């Protein structure tokens, strides 16, 4: 049985239950139960109409639960309204579900968890493993999130930007476990792109595809980080790159630029360079300028300083860096790199060691410590 296919039916089934009058929280529980049941029953007895099967089982489960509850009268109304069995409607309410799960009243971590469960069809255990928290903690986070959005009307249009932020978080902060969160984020973003025509949705999808294409080249066999310039470009996934570039070009042609399209454009320029030396840094700086206009983010300005260092030389990069706040995350790492390019190895080594102290994760810390060690080894020989 294809688990991804099963999970892809989740949002439709959930939306059908909600449209039939089930409240979101109870419907979502019922769909989870139906998914678990499907995993148990389908291998031996696959249904002819998987979606219809899930709707029937989830609806029955919902009614059983409601029956056990005190709200007896409401339940009877629902039974009366139950539509005749038959093929589930083909209308895709997936979009509404995305909006609900990324509702602005939710914290980012709650929105991520709820999206992965209600839209992604992952189990609480899988989500808990992926984010390295106990299952009970994740279950509680999800049920609180459902309570938070319980008063939100399902048919209200939402803000695409909040959905994109949630999907970006899933992609960018995917940790570990059995579930490949980056692939899951791509799957969910693809589905969103099919449900809504929006250049920034396309931009985010392109951005994810272009970064995912480099995944195999990003880490060495021992798990250490391989910087972009040193990656074996032969290991980049050209199919993903071609798809990402095509999606991006179609989005850019619509002339409604946003931050994800701009980020994707930068990733596309890297993807386009056969070697690191052939990278079109001048164009990349221009895209960072666009991005800085769109977001006014200090992190963007920091990355821009790196690009300026490549386009106009390390001195120009250091000048761009001097205008920024030295307490920015990764400031010391960027400064170290630019000083090394400028030939000041002693300063670079000192700054790499300082950057390692401030590194936000172990992989970066080890990488930066190695950089300091590399320069110190050379200098003392």
């Amino acid at each position, binding site marked *: 049985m294809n688990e991804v296919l099963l999970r892809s039916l989740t949002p439709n089934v959930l939306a059908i239950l909600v449209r039939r009058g089930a409240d979101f929280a109870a419907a979502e529980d019922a769909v989870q139960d139906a998914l678990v049941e499907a995993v148990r029953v389908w291998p031996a007895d696959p249904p002819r109409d998987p979606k219809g099967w899930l709707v029937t089982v989830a609806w029955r489960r919902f009614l059983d639960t409601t029956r056990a509850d005190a709200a007896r009268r409401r339940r009877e109304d629902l039974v009366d309204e139950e539509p005749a069995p038959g093929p589930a409607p083909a209308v895709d309410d997936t979009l509404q579900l995305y909006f609900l799960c990324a509702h602005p009243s939710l914290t980012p971590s709650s929105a991520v968890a709820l999206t992965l469960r209600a839209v992604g069809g992952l189990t609480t255990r899988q989500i808990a493993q992926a984010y390295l928290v106990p299952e009970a903690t994740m279950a509680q986070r999800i049920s609180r999130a459902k309570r938070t959005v319980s008063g939100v009307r399902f048919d209200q249009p939402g803000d695409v930007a909040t959905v994109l932020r949630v999907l970006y978080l899933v992609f960018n902060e995917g940790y570990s476990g059995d579930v490949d969160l980056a692939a899951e984020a791509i799957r969910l973003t693809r589905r969103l792109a099919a449900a809504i025509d929006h250049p920034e949705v396309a931009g985010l999808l392109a951005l994810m595809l272009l970064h995912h294409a480099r995944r195999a080249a990003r880490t060495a066999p021992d798990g250490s980080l391989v910087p972009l310039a040193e990656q074996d470009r032969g290991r980049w996934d050209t199919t993903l790159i071609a798809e990402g570039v095509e999606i991006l070009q179609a989005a850019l042609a619509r002339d409604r630029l946003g931050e994800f399209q701009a980020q994707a454009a930068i990733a596309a320029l890297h993807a386009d360079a056969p070697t690191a030396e052939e990278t079109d840094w001048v164009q990349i700086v221009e895209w960072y300028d666009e991005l800085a206009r769109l977001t006014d983010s200090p992190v963007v300005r920091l990355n821009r300083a790196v690009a300026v260092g490549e386009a106009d030389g390390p001195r120009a990069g250091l000048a761009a860096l001097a205008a920024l706040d030295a307490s920015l995350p990764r400031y010391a790492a960027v400064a170290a790199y630019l000083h090394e390019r400028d030939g000041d190895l002693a300063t670079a080594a000192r700054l790499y060691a300082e950057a390692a102290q*401030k590194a*936000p994760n172990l992989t970066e810390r080890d990488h930066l410590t*190695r950089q300091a*060690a*590399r320069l110190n080894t050379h200098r003392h020989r």
Partner: protein
Amino acid sequence: MAKYLLLKHYRGAPASVNNVPMDRWTPEEISAHVQYMNDFAARLEETGEFVDGQALAPEGTWVRYDGEGRPPVTDGPFAETKDLIAGWMVIDVDGYERAVELAGELSAAPGAGGRPIHEWLEVRPFLTAPPTITE
């Protein structure tokens, strides 16, 4: 079974024998060290003795309650802090002897020149739930 915390310190532990800061090692020595630590944890997972392992950033903040309706007071980080924890591993083993044996192995991780660091690790038993049978 008994749980023990193996604590690694940035500062505060007695000096290790092979006491060279990591950024003065060669990149290959750093890789060998990281590999040793990963292999150690993987081996404990296989023997069913691994519970958890985490690393901490060196910079933290002191925080305390400052009274009703007021935000907490924050301070630091203090450069002069004598004791600074770098990370830990929690193990669940048969007893104290095994905990000491494993801490000894962890302390043998290679450092500068590929020789063991001989760093001091702190082994602390967890306080557990009371047993059912006490007489």
